[in-house]
């Protein structure tokens, strides 16, 4: 990230950041700042939300209003904020544990309601902060701290989950596809409705060392790239069952439907009038 971008958008007294060398979450922070700069996001109107985990730390570094420190409740916070002041730009930074495990219920309901917020998921395929436990996103058979004989559970596909639940903007890229990822973030920030952009990301310290037997971030990025397939080539979900293609990349959903403004009908009618 350029010095100018750091000075413009990061909370100076919060640096240096706490990410491990080679962490994918730090890359996504970089991508977000570039996307925000490209679309001219007003940081006085931005509320950045993080729960608990490595990714959840991203809002701490952004020079904006921020909520932080409770695991999984990011979308509940966001709903309260957006219902009271729809003019605020609410962006959630969530790890896969935060959004797919403890916060999974809030995710599907916020998507169903089409809450007008942006969710940026850094999916590092494990619980990185707590030492590398298995997550609902960990690919089958891989070893983690709590699956020493290999993961027996099938993983969630977060983009399919979000789409099925009702999200109106869904993309998946990786830390290795910066250009596409930044473009997807720009689209999500401009989108009116529930947007989710997932980045499959390397976690050299915990996922890398256990699942890939390498703590080298380059090995982690390469492994993700080797197991990714572009949506246009994949031909659908079936291809993912093959050994090599764990992650289908692309822009999956971009559509419009009414955004959530509260459970009361009279309320909704008045506000859309």
């Amino acid at each position: 990230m350029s010095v100018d971008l750091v000075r413009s958008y990061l909370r100076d007294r919060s640096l240096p950041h706490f990410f491990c060398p080679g962490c994918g979450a730090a890359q996504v922070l970089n991508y977000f700042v570039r996307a925000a700069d490209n679309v001219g996001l007003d940081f006085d109107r931005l509320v950045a939300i993080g729960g608990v985990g490595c990714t959840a730390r991203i809002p701490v570094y952004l020079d904006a209003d921020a909520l932080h420190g409770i695991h999984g409740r990011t979308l509940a916070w966001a709903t309260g904020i957006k219902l009271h002041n729809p003019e605020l730009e609410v962006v959630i930074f969530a790890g896969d544990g935060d959004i797919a495990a403890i916060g999974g219920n809030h995710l599907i309901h916020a998507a169903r309601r089409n809450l007008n917020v942006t969710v940026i998921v850094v999916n590092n395929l494990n619980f990185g902060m707590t030492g590398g436990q298995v997550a609902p996103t960990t690919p089958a058979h891989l070893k983690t701290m709590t699956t020493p004989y290999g993961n027996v559970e099938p993983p969630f596909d977060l983009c399919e989950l979000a789409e099925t639940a009702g999200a109106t903007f869904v993309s998946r890229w990786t830390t290795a596809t910066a250009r596409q990822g930044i473009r997807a973030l720009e689209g999500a920030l401009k989108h009116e409705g529930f947007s989710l952009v997932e980045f499959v990301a390397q976690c050299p310290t915990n996922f890398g060392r256990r699942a890939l037997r390498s703590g080298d971030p380059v090995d982690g990025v390469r492994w993700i790239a080797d197991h990714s397939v572009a949506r246009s080539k994949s031909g659908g979900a079936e291809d993912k069952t093959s050994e090599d293609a764990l992650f289908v990349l692309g822009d999956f959903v971009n559509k419009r439907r009414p955004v959530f403004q509260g459970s009361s009908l009279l309320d909704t009618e008045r506000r859309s009038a």
Partner: protein
Amino acid sequence: MNQTGGRVLEGKHFMLGNHAVVEGALAAGCDFFAGYPITPANEISERMASRMPEVGGRFVQGEDELFSIFALSGASLAGAKAMTATASAGFNYMQEGLGYAVAAEIPLVVVDVQRCRGENYATQADVMQMRWGASGDHEMIVLAPSSVQELFDLTVRAFNLAERYRTPVIIMSETTIALMRENLTIPGADDIEVVHRVTPSVPREEFLPFAAPVDGTPPFAVLGTGYRVLHSLNPHDERGSISWDPDVFKTMYERILGKITRNRDDIVETEAVLLEDAEIVVVAYGSTSRPALEAVYRAREKGIRAGLLRLITVWPVPDREIAAAAENARVVLSVEMNVGKYSGEVERCVAGRCPVKRVTKNRGEIHTSEEVLAAIEGVTR
């Protein structure tokens, strides 16, 4: 459902307790409600769903109680006066959000309509969970209404205390009063004191979002007003920066706890009935204070010098009031509708000035005045 459109339904009513809570909230300026269905709190959500749109507020029925309590935090940080209502089993889930609201200093109001036996039977069994349910260090303000009128009055007060001290306030309701209809007088809007949180008066460069005198409350920068504040559960310094320094942690909690404990005289409210010459002091809170009061009057008719100390604020503990009432008493009776929980606090405050006898009832039924009277007579002989 009435569709008056007004925020303050001035006048005389014969109203359900749960509905009085809603009207109290609206009179206090509540403009955000999140809830999840649970008996016996449902009439609060039902009326809020109808009334909120009339006053330009937002109502949301969430996916669970965790949603409710955190939606409240979000809305309040965005400037709303926010409330939720639940019952004991749902109140369990809210502890995490209450802890966050204490640490991040977020005003909000939670109504717990206590229930037991897995249904809407009468109880006061959550009195300790209200105080101690959240993890970490905290003070909690808990108000115990004993009538439909007080469900209105204390809901207004709950919002005012939440706004003044930037902290969650719990209304300790009960099946007994929540599902009861009684006379209610709602004053005119001009006669209802409504407190609003103080907002910053200095520009961003000079603003320290978590700086305040040790007995004070920091000004509240509403989200999106350019102050760019970090609201974290993690220990934070006066600028809001996360810091793991033990001094920062200690200083932060001394201030957050201190703003309640040092202002206890403003927060603590009790009612004394016939205490001046009382030999037998009955201490009660919430609905049980009603049979307790009747028992005291009946004891007086029999020539027994009994009196009642009714705790309107249950937490912080009215310690000095309990001690003063016990000063010249022969015995203190602690009446509560559970296995005997708050009685430990009463004993602590009486501190050996006289014996404390527990008059507990844990059957899902409120005490009768005969039962309390029998307890009074039992210690008279």
